[in-house]
């Protein structure tokens, strides 16, 4: 009988126990996979945020307006490659609950700032020269069955908008997946109040390394004006958004620790029972000339087999569960999040650690079995 056969026989010795242990390990890994996947998704989201893009907003909270003239002045700050005004209005399409964000901006500047947003050059040029033009995110266009040439009427809190779909763009930021991009001048003209103001200004910088000093240069430009600004990189902005969910990292780590502790105790106990019952058999193998190392390897393989199989099954369930879990955090832009590569490796690592931590002491015990004593009974 091969070593694998011996391990298989050991696992089948008490099938109920093996199956139940595997099921509880799998349940633990569903939790671990979901939590670590969520964490990995958040940090992947942060990594994808561009440190090259600055957001300039009013230092007064609540999207207090800034003069649109600031965009031109920011454009002249050394190191700023391109700057775009931004004003956000919420349009209601057909039904009151069908709310669509509309970003009024300088289209050409915006797509220079976000070169990874894909839009056909001809559509962009056409849209930029037509006042009522709208560029619609592909996902949104599919949802609402809009195509280029359609005219869409939106109601907003500050008046009605009539937009012509001039192009479809593909954003790489999930937050923008259901937005409309329109011309600032048209949105501005539609507003009864706050004319010639923006809610924020987006600016790209030539050199990421200089982003902090450029931010400071922008803020000091307006420091003593009527409308002081607050400039931060998109990444900083996103970090502060995520920090606003509160002590999420703390909660996740606490649960992971609780699960791991429980899991370790459980597998160690199950394996201990298995080894205890088989001391006689192990002693026979030893008497037949199996080296200690072989016995240790067999016990460890048994632990690894259960942990790895059940762990991977649990991860699979977690991967299915995660999208449902993260769709509850829409404001974070985690919509497309799934079990990330890193979290998968992390979980495999954890399952190996659990298997070794519970297996090594028992493997030693098995190999120290005193043949004469055990067999004489």
């Amino acid at each position, binding site marked *: 009988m091969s070593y694998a056969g011996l391990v298989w026989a050991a696992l089948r010795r008490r099938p*109920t*126990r093996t199956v*139940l*242990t595997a*099921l*509880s*390990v*799998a*349940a*633990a890994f*569903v*939790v671990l996979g*979901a*939590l670590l996947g969520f964490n990995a998704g958040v940090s992947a989201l942060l990594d994808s945020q561009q440190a090259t893009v600055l957001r300039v907003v009013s*230092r*007064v*909270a*609540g*999207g*207090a*307006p800034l003069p649109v003239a600031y965009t031109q002045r920011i454009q002249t700050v050394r190191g700023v490659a391109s700057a775009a005004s931004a004003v956000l209005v*919420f349009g209601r399409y057909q039904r009151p609950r069908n709310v669509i964000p509309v970003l009024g901006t300088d289209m050409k500047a915006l797509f220079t700032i976000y070169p990874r947003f894909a839009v056909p050059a001809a559509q962009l040029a056409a849209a930029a020269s037509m006042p009522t033009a709208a560029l619609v995110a592909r996902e949104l266009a599919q949802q609402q069955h809009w195509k280029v040439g359609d005219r869409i009427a939106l109601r*907003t*809190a*500050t008046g009605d908008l009539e937009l012509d779909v001039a192009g479809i763009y593909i954003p790489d930021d999930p937050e923008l997946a259901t937005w409309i991009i329109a011309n600032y001048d048209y949105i501005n003209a539609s507003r009864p*109040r*706050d004319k010639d103001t923006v809610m924020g200004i987006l600016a790209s910088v030539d050199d990421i390394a200089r982003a902090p000093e450029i931010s400071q240069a922008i803020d000091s430009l307006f*420091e003593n004006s*009527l*409308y*002081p600004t607050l400039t931060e990189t998109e990444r900083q902005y996103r970090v*502060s958004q995520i*920090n*606003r*969910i*509160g*002590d999420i990292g*703390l*909660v996740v780590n*606490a*649960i992971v620790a*609780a*699960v791991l*502790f*429980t899991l370790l*105790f*459980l597998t160690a*106990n*199950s394996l*201990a*029972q298995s080894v205890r019952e088989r001391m006689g058999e192990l002693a026979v193998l030893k008497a037949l000339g199996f080296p200690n190392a072989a016995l240790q390897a067999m016990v460890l393989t048994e632990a690894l087999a259960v942990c790895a199989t059940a762990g991977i099954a649990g991860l699979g369930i977690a991967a299915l*569960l995660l999208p449902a*879990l993260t769709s*509850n955090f829409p*404001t974070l832009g985690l919509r497309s999040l799934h079990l990330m590569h890193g979290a998968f490796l992390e979980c495999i690592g954890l399952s190996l650690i659990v298997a070794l931590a519970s297996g090594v002491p028992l493997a030693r015990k098995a190999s120290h079995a005193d043949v004469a004593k055990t067999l004489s009974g």
Partner: protein
Amino acid sequence: MPMSPRLYRVDTAMNTILQTIAVSMMSVRSLPQRLIPSLVIVIGMGGAAAVLVAMLSLSRGLSHTISSTGSADRAIVLRAGADAEEASILPRDALAKIVGAPGVARMPSGQPIVSTEILTTLNIPGADGRVAGSVTLRGVSADTSTSLRPEIHLVEGRTFRPGFHELVVGGAAQGRFGSLGIGHPVKVLNAQWTVVGTFEGGGTHDAELLGDAETLMGAYRRTSFSAVTVKLTSPIAFRDFRRALMSDPAISVAVGPEWYYYEAHSQIFAKLLTLVATVIGGIMAVGAVFAAMNTMYSAVVARTIEIATLRAIGFGASAVIGSVLIEALLLALLGSFVGGAVVWLLLNGSVMSTVSGAGINNVIVRLHVGGGPVMAGMAWACVVGLLGGLLPGLRAARLPVETALRPA
């Protein structure tokens, strides 16, 4: 004397109960011999219960903090289309209309009890000089603030004076940031403001700094408010107040009862937390069921001879099943108790920061572990214990007596 069938049934039922108690006592007394495997149930259930209790406590704390903020006799006026105070801007000319609307309560002096409010967010530096977190600074009307929100009371120091760079801090914010003690400076724009008092009782406002609205508007050179909070003569007056403002074409505002505003903003996140607690706690509980089954199966194996002997001398199958179920149940309950106790020791009274969803930042929740969440943990323990004990119990009852007693 022959027993009547009815009495006989009562007698057998009593018998089963007595037998179950006797067998359960016996198995519980032998628990120390099966200590480690039994601990698997306790620890497995403890882990699930700890997660459940901790997250439910957080969710309840959040709900409670936010819903205790709103009052039925106050109304919030925002700009039309803004669904949160942070996103609202009201021009000064709207104020005259709001003050003049019907239903606004007045002080004995005749002054309407209305607070113009302006919200900003301050970054609070930690001990190392880096940003430790952010706190909402709310400017309120100094002369009406005690009439408007009588539930807020100073616990230390004094209140701020209009025209001076002075702030009062909520107890929860102070608990979270050591640098917000009385006498400490707070940087607002480029000026130093000073904390002069501490207050409590304001629900979510306990996580905020309060100052004088006009002084703050001057500092920020702003001419518009974020929102206006109004005390109404009675909760019923709200309808007239709302109708008067909504029908005025000169202003475009949204008007809502204060309690509704806070309820609407709190429920999303509190529900989400409960959902996450249930899903994660639920999966852990499923794991605990499997662990409990494992343990109880091996307990049955360890007690094979004992159980067979009992059956041979006339104990019923239901007594054996009952004893296995009771043992699993007791261990699971012990586990949920241990899990709850650990959470209580670690988290009770601690302060956590969270948000409630759109609009309300930085709710600081003081956790009170107890009551409902612990009961929920115990209820789950009962389910885990029963499910975990059922199959092993049935196996124990079906043990073939003669083969079990034959020496191996």
